[in-house]
């Protein structure tokens, strides 16, 4: 349990530090790299929670595809690669106030509801069980998700093509 706790706190500190830098950095490309750090940390958290399949999907889809897609977006919108001062809104204290208020409300509510609960890690959730569930009880949402992906693909091409 001690090893789990140590790795959790290492991952958590890295993730929170990278997330804070992501929303404060002046460099768009570095923001994408900080996003990759946060996503890799989330994959580590999934492994700590014994969800290996979701962890590897996270690495493949998020770090492999989404971050690259965002970097393409940075490239195609010709964002300046160096430092830029004009990335934030004029007033930053209103968003900070909203975020701090929301964090206070969430922390109070979660520690009230789940403060004393513990994860038992009784049975290991195998990838086979996940696939049984997807292709058994949740096969219709799965098919709907594939249609949604097709629609998003066609929509993205239709929006972005030039004519």
């Amino acid at each position, binding site marked *: 349990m001690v090893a789990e706790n140590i790795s959790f706190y290492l991952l*958590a500190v890295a*993730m*929170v530090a990278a*997330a*804070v830098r992501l*929303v404060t950095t002046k460099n*768009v490309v570095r*923001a994408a790299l900080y*996003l990759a750090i*946060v996503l890799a940390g989330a994959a580590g*958290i*999934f492994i700590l*929670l014994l*969800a290996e*399949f979701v962890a590897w*999907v*996270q690495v493949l*889809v*998020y770090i492999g595809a989404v971050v690259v*897609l*965002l970097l393409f*977006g940075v490239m*195609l*919108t010709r*964002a300046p690669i160096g430092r830029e001062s004009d*990335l*934030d*809104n004029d007033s930053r204290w209103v*968003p*900070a106030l*909203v*975020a*701090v208020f*929301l964090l206070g409300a*969430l922390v109070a509510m979660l*520690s009230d509801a789940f*403060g004393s*609960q*513990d*994860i*038992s*890690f009784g049975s290991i*959730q195998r990838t086979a069980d*996940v696939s*049984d*569930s*997807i292709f058994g009880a*949740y096969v219709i949402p*799965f098919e709907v*998700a594939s249609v*949604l*992906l097709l*629609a*998003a*693909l066609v929509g*993205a*091409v239709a*929006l*972005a093509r*030039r004519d």
Partner: protein
Amino acid sequence: MLNQFLMLAAVIFCIGVYGVLARKNAVLVLMSIELMLNAVNINLIAFGAFRDNVIGQVFALFVIAIAAAEVGVGLAIVLLIFRNRANIDLDQADLMKG
């Protein structure tokens, strides 16, 4: 043990909310949205492990698939805004302001 995962997700979610509200560049706003979606995924997996149930993982996989579709369409819209206005500052895209 459950609570620390939920707290981490809450902190990341609130940082994402700050990023969505404070950033002006549309690509950075999309990155902040990814941050918030990831916080939700951590919550789903943590509750799945807590209830000893695979449904949390199934939902997290659906969220990952839909987030990938969302970022694709979002970037296409950002490209379109850039092509029409030559910048992607969200506070200048106020055509529908009354």
